[in-house]
């Protein structure tokens, strides 16, 4: 028989309410920094945001005016080339894990991908430095793209694997039963069915690397001028924010905040778009 509440001792009721109150408080405290950071970035960044900021290159340190156009374009190009490296390898490895990797070898690759996911980004930067910069003898966009591309692989492959496993086995069997070879089944049926999920995995990886600074510091290196060559050092938005933030000029700080506003807008847009696609159902026609 259920016991009426008032027969529970005062001590137990008190500890119950205290604990539940603390739990609720924790949830509130956790969301606080998010609002504070957003508010500060918008408040301090919006002042300098202008057409000039988005279209001009930086002026000298501490000078009025100028913008981060080269860094914005540099970031976009870095992300593009990183995707050229990271997306095919990531999806390929994901297909291996889901379709051929239900065994010991799959477990080894799965574990290694998790290890790669946990490698600090600065260590990936060191590796890209040793692999590309040392060989080329100078910093370059290529080196930066290699570092970012490596960082994309584990995210994409593990998410792709998860999405492919959600594709019902009956769909595969139906395709195979029609006499379609396995490779066609995977390419035209399985991957097609899971395409929305794979797109979200790419965007997830994008959001992760878009703000990365550490692996770019001694690969892409940064550049105050226009540079669209894969072979030359290039500016990137996070690098530019960092170098302005540690300068001793108020004008540079203001620009750093505006850069942060631009960067955070790009990333949040990607994440929310990703949530939207994911909520629309990662798998078309799964049920």
């Amino acid at each position: 028989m259920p016991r009426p509440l008032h027969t529970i001792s005062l001590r137990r009721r008190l500890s119950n309410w205290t604990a539940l109150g603390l739990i609720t408080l924790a949830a509130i405290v956790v969301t606080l920094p998010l609002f504070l950071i957003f508010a500060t970035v918008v408040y301090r960044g919006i002042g300098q945001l202008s057409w000039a900021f988005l279209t001009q290159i930086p002026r000298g340190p501490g000078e009025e005016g100028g913008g981060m156009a080269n860094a914005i374009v540099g970031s976009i190009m870095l992300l593009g080339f990183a995707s050229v490296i990271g997306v095919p390898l990531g999806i390929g490895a994901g297909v291996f894990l889901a379709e051929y990797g239900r065994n010991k070898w799959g477990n080894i690759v799965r574990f290694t991908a998790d290890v790669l996911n946990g490698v600090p980004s600065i260590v990936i930067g060191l590796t890209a430095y040793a692999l590309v910069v040392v060989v080329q003898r100078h910093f370059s966009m290529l080196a930066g793209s290699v570092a970012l591309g490596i960082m994309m692989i584990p995210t994409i492959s593990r998410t792709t694997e998860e999405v492919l496993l959600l594709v019902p086995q009956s769909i595969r069997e139906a395709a195979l039963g029609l006499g379609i070879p396995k490779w066609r089944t995977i390419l035209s049926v399985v991957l097609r069915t899971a395409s929305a999920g794979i797109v979200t995995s790419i965007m997830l990886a994008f959001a992760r690397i878009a703000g990365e600074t550490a692996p770019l510091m001694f690969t892409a290196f940064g550049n105050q001028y226009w540079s669209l060559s894969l072979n030359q050092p290039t500016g990137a938005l996070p690098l530019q924010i960092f170098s302005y933030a540690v300068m001793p000029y108020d004008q540079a700080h203001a620009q750093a905040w505006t850069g942060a506003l631009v960067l955070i807008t790009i990333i949040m847009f990607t994440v929310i778009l990703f949530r939207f696609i994911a909520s629309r159902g990662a798998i078309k026609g799964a049920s």
Partner: protein
Amino acid sequence: MHTVPEHRHAQKRQVSERPVASGSASGDAELEIVPKSRLGARESVVADGIFRGIVVLCALAVLAIVGLIVFELVRESKLAMGKFGFSFLIKQIWDPVAEDFGALPFIYGTVVSSLLALVIAVPLSVGTALFLTELCPRAVRAVLSLLVELLAAIPSVIYGLWGIFVLSPFLRLHIQPFLGKYFGWTGLFTGPKYGWGMLAAGVILAIMILPIIASITREVITAVPRVQREAALALGATKWEMLRMSVLRNARPGIFGATILGLGRALGETMAVTMVIGNRPEIVKSLFAPGHTLASVIANEFAEATSAAYFSALVEMGLVLFVVTLIVNALASLLVWSITRGMPARTLA
């Protein structure tokens, strides 16, 4: 009449799941239900082989990349290893001019800032996870979990920027005087109050690892069987007693795993830390004092490391960081996996 369709359904599901469940060495053997002769064209067998080869190459690339990371780190740090040997890890000297390097202050800074972050982040994220799964109204849950997810998407350089211009002044004006006055006797909160320093690094790191600990803890809590909760409630437990006795106790190894995973993130975090920690290689007991970490020293000094020994010493720090995070992450995955493997949604691995 009711049992027949259900039985048939169960049977059907069993059949359709068979190829996934039996993960033998010949993983695709079961899929070739159609005899090869029926497939006819020999080309399709060849094409299958080629496709498989491409996919296997992608998977090998993952192994190769991790192999390359280890290889390059070891190769580039050989010089420092030979020159300083084991004493590299326990020396406090950091003198680029005399080319004498020891990593101890950096290891100390990395460990202390990360532990500080855990002390702040773990109670908060477990609380958040409990709130999200057990207390929160359904409408709030979606919004709140989106917010926590967005927190994870903020780039580390923006955390750093915020740390320099908002958090540090706040700590200097409001938190540090309070801590110094009432807890100064512990020796942890003494000395000049700059705002930035070890304490600021710990707080920033805590904010950064909150989302990952909270989301994994949430997963682990969800995995605790419903009957456990119902049993506690049926025995007359209050809600908190139920959470403590059946949810938290069962989820404990998983929460520990989430904590370790958060630790792995904190150890390797670079930009935000280097922007607020003060970058001074000293071992000081007070958390108000500036410090330095393995990751931040690489970020700060790599570009100016002109001599071979200096360069090699920095790469060796990278190697130390890599090995430590590797161990920490492996431990964490093992713990989380041991809890969530029973979940129906995750029959993988």
